[in-house]
Every structure is written in C-alpha cells, then in structure tokens.
C-alpha cells in the first residue's frame, strides 16, 4: 500500500430542497474533514450532478461522480429526513455506481428541523449502504433542530458539534485506512 497517498473522503450533500439547512452542515463537515492530516476532501452536491431521470442505475453513471467515488477511501453522506426516509434524488445518485463503493467506509450525518436529527433517515439508509458494498461505522452525527444549530449565514452556533464530529471522523478515518489496506493487499478468501 502506498501510505504516502492521502486518504480521500468526499462529503455528499444528499438533498435538492430549496433553502436546505443541510448545506450548512455539509460545509461544516467538509471543513472539519479537511483539517485532518493526510486527508483530502471535497463537497459533492447532488444537485450539480448531470444525471438523467429517464433511466436509472449504472446505465446513467456520471464520469465525474464515478471518478470521485473511485478515488475515495470513505464517503460521508449528509442528508435530511424526507418523510422518515432519504431523498429520492440521493438514491438515484447512489445507484449510479457499484464497483466504486465496494469495501469502502461510509459515515452518515443526519439533519432535521425536529428533535430526531435524521435518525430515521439514517436507519433507512443503512441497508442501502450494505447492498452497495459500503461499510458503515457506528458513529453518526445528528443535527436536530438544525435551525438552532446554524444562523442564516451558516455560522455554527453550538460548538459541541465539533467534539461530536471529532469522534465520528476518528472512527471513519480508522475504518478508511483499514479498508484501504484490505482492498489493496488482502485477497478474498
């Protein structure tokens, strides 16, 4: 394994809703990931991906998204709760790749205006992660009452989230390093 190659952990913003507060959360997460030594990151906004809707799955794979996910060692998905689930557009994007995800780590950040911080969205997204070959970590970050966590300009109002993200990111980075070793060096049994 080339240990000098930095880890790449992009952040996927999984909502297209106008006025989305998840954008503030995604930007914060991206900044925090980018502070880690040996880690590179990038915010992937699903609204900016040119995926058609007259087909689905790998048939509509976008080369830009595919190459970023192929390069990735882990993913962070930041998404709000849509009727207890995740957005249809997020699923449409996730379904457009497969080999790019296999044996890579994923952490999920839930966002909600209410008290549950996207917990139900996360629970519903977990089986999708498993089927895509992604490896979930047991830490989440939950931005509940998100309108109180950020001001209208996206400034973080509750510094406790920095500590919560630290634990989440430590676990994700450990898993990303471990799985890179596995993907590159350990043959399947």
């Amino acid at each position, binding site marked *: *394994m*080339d240990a000098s*190659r930095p880890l790449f952990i992009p952040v996927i913003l999984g909502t297209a809703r106008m006025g989305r507060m998840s954008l503030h959360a995604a930007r914060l997460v991206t900044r925090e990931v980018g502070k880690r030594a040996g880690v590179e990151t990038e915010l992937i906004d699903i609204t900016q991906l040119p995926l058609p809707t007259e087909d689905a799955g790998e*048939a509509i794979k976008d080369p830009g998204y595919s190459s970023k996910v*192929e*390069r990735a*060692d882990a993913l962070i998905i930041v998404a709000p709760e849509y009727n207890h689930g995740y957005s249809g557009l997020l699923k449409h994007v996730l379904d457009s790749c*497969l*080999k*790019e995800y*296999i*044996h890579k780590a994923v952490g999920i950040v839930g966002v909600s205006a209410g008290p549950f911080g996207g917990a139900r969205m996360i629970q519903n997204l977990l089986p999708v992660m498993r089927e895509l*070959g992604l490896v979930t970590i047991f830490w989440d970050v939950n931005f509940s009452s998100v309108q109180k966590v950020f001001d209208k300009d996206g400034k973080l109002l509750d510094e406790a989230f920095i500590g919560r993200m630290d634990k989440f990111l430590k676990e994700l980075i450990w898993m990303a390093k471990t799985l*890179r070793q*596995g*993907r*590159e*060096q*350990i*043959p*399947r049994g």
Partner: protein
Amino acid sequence: MTTDDKMICPMCRVEMNHHSDKLVYTTDSQTVRMGETLGEYLEEFHTCPKCGGVASRHAA
C-alpha cells in the same frame, strides 16, 4: 466460480487485488448471459495496490 487470472491495473500495469465478489441482479437482457436464468451474475471486484484504482468483471 471466479476467475484465477489476475486483473492488471491499466494505469500502473501491476496486478490488482481481487478482494470481493458480489451477486448482482439485473433486468438488462444484454448483461444476462446463458445459464443466468434469474438475471443474477457474480461480479468480481479488484483494487490496484499502487494507485487504488478499482475494476470489476463478470466471474467466469
């Protein structure tokens, strides 16, 4: 049954590590081959130990 031939990374020209197999279901008649009556096939996943690039192929 999976393929014994090593895949070669098109970028680095080194042998890739075959680390996973997955049963994939498809409705695409072009993808389904003879004998795959339910539309499922086994896909192999390989990663380059040098650049981290990934590749996949149908198992033999």
